């Protein structure tokens, strides 16, 4: 879901250019350049957030948050981050530098994941139990819009031009396409079983979506808005039912996709152009959440059933360290 940093920056730059918000751009650029070097991990069963120091890869502190924290996202200038808490039906807003709670968006029914519109104000949120996508204004905390989806909406992605929003419905095996300007769902794209998360190629020609129960990644052609190809994963020694891909990341150059393979306890490395699976990297149990450092040298993996984070060196494709965190780690945010 998250680090489409490249895409996000491009989108942001485009917004800045057309809106002539040069000051905002430089401010954001400066904030990004600084980076606190902190890494945040949401632990959905211990209701807390682990803070890692990215230089030493050690735990600095752990702080309590709202109940069942899962999806996380930075705000537009990366000075704050949002945490979705399903069991409290709210989104908590923290200051990155101090991790102080600075606000809450309430009345968000069981949020799971979310994405920020390039306008920096509208948060598109999948509401798992309600089978809806809601749109909240992050400044006023007001509900702006609501869309009815299939059951268990999960992954959500806004294109960099802010025109389309994609939502995966896990239980309906559909990806819904929301036209932002028209304010309605314009298409339901059938996928394989249990679609979970998205990654866009940097040229935004392809949308990759993991189909957890089919053990695949479906590739959606963004012009045709349909699944045109798929990548299957078959790490050695695992049965089909154990291969349950969830999170996906595509590198800024559009060459490599990393796919967390869930119960197969590996991360798949895919050549985006040829669709070839290049490697499988052993990580912890039930790997879901992924995050790359800015230089893409390290890949962080949240292992939900071994309560730890694996750190992968992307050059050697080796797991170089694992760090115990809270119970059932879900999302990872890197502020570097």
């Amino acid at each position, binding site marked *: 879901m998250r680090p489409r940093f490249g895409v996000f920056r491009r989108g942001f730059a485009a917004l800045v250019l057309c809106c002539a918000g040069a000051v905002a751009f430089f401010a954001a650029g400066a904030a990004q350049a600084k980076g606190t070097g902190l890494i945040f991990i949401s632990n959905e069963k211990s209701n807390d957030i682990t803070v890692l120091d990215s230089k030493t890869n050690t735990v600095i502190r752990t702080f309590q948050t709202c109940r069942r924290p899962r999806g996380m996202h930075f705000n537009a200038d990366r000075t704050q981050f949002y945490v979705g808490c399903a069991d409290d039906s709210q989104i908590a807003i923290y200051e990155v530098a101090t991790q102080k709670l600075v606000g809450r968006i309430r009345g968000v029914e069981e949020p799971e994941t979310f994405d920020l519109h390039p306008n920096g104000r509208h948060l598109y949120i999948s509401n*798992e139990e309600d089978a809806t996508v809601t749109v909240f204004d992050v400044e006023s905390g007001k509900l702006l819009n609501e869309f009815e989806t*299939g059951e268990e909406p999960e992954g959500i992605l806004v294109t960099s031009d802010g025109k389309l929003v994609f939502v995966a419905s896990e239980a309906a095996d559909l990806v819904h396409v929301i036209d932002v300007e028209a304010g309605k769902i314009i298409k*339901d794209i059938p996928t394989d079983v249990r679609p979970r998360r998205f990654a866009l190629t940097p040229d935004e020609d392809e949308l990759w979506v993991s189909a957890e129960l089919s053990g695949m990644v479906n590739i959606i052609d963004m012009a045709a808005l349909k699944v045109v190809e798929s990548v299957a994963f078959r790490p050695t020694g695992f049965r089909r039912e154990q291969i349950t891909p969830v999170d996906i990341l595509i590198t800024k150059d559009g060459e490599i996709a990393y796919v967390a393979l869930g119960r197969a306890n590996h991360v798949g490395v895919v050549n985006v152009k040829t669709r070839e699976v290049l490697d499988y990297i052993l990580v912890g149990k039930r790997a879901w959440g992924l995050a790359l450092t800015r230089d893409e040298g390290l890949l962080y993996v949240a292992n939900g059933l071994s309560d730890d984070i694996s750190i992968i060196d992307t050059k050697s494709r080796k797991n170089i360290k694992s760090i115990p965190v809270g119970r059932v780690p879900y999302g990872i945010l890197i502020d570097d």
Partner: protein
Amino acid sequence: MRKEVLLACLFALSATCWPAIARANEFVFAYVGIEGDPYYLAGRRYTGLTLKQPHPPLPGAKMAIRDSRIIGRSLGITFKLIEKAAAGADELATVIEALHREAGAKVFLLDVPAAMLRATAGRLAGAPLLLFNIRNRDNDLRNENCAPNLYHAVPSYRMLTDALAQYLFKKGWTKVLVLRGPGEADQAYAHSFSASARRMRLEIVGDRGFELTNDPRKRGESNVALMTGGPDYDVIFIADQDGEFGRYVPYQTYLPRPLVGDEGLTPAAWHWTWERHGAPQLNQRFARIEKTRRMSGADWAAWVSIKSVVAAIRKTGSSDLGGLRRFLTDPDTTIDTYKGSPSSFRAWNNQLRQPILLHTHNAVVARAPVEGFLHETNYLDTLGFDRGESKCVLAR
């Protein structure tokens, strides 16, 4: 407020915006039970105490219909559920035929006793409809009394006892004392356990029938300590559907040993504490539909029956029954059971292959097939009657 508006919109959609499509493109499921079904009669226990009160799994079916509404939107189909209670065994086939003729129902969830299922599936052989067994675990329905138009969403006794036996074997608890009640279901369950024990090379060191009595002359059939003395064993298997005897067995046994079966560690299609593979979401959706109780294995079976057919309609792009049947029993089909493994119906007896949950009163201890039990084609087929041992002949 928001929810009310949403609900109003939903009603508006179905009532006014889509009427033409709804009539033309409607797919109807029917839930058929029996009037005054004794299986569900409450208060079977003394002084208002109910132990294992089953409830009709209608909420499970309703949840599946609700779950399918957006899939229906994407297909231009409205999925509908109608309910009907037949007056008795003789009327059941007539009711089904009438619902098919008059309401266009094609798929029937049958919440009826096994005997009625056997008779009705035969009478309806060749009719253009699909029947789903959402209640009965009897092994014969998957063997000599199977029927080509009858699909089983509930696991058989044999699947349940195979799951238990795998777990016992894995733990090294290979010596088992069997306690069985007098009821028909108890006999069937215990009989199935014996077969599973043979398969897993477990040793049954004693097999004893109990009675509900205080008669001092019958202490050997009613006194727990006496009944559990004698040979050494690792674990006790108890078949007691009513639960009246079984609830007094823990902590009263002669040897300090765990219980499995109808008390202690119980194999089931579903349990409300299951929290993997999306289960919390399913349990919470169920809680929105049915507020007075938790989701049961029967609810799950009703839900998965409709879900399977909806998946078949989507994947085949048609509601043609021939295509739906082929999809359901295609080994490459992936039905999401919320229990982890991709499921499909066994082509040789129409049984849904599925993981079995081994649970206590408040936790799922294990999911079978237990790790390490392998199979040449699908490891789910280590549970229940495999192709080679099935006595079912499906002349389609």
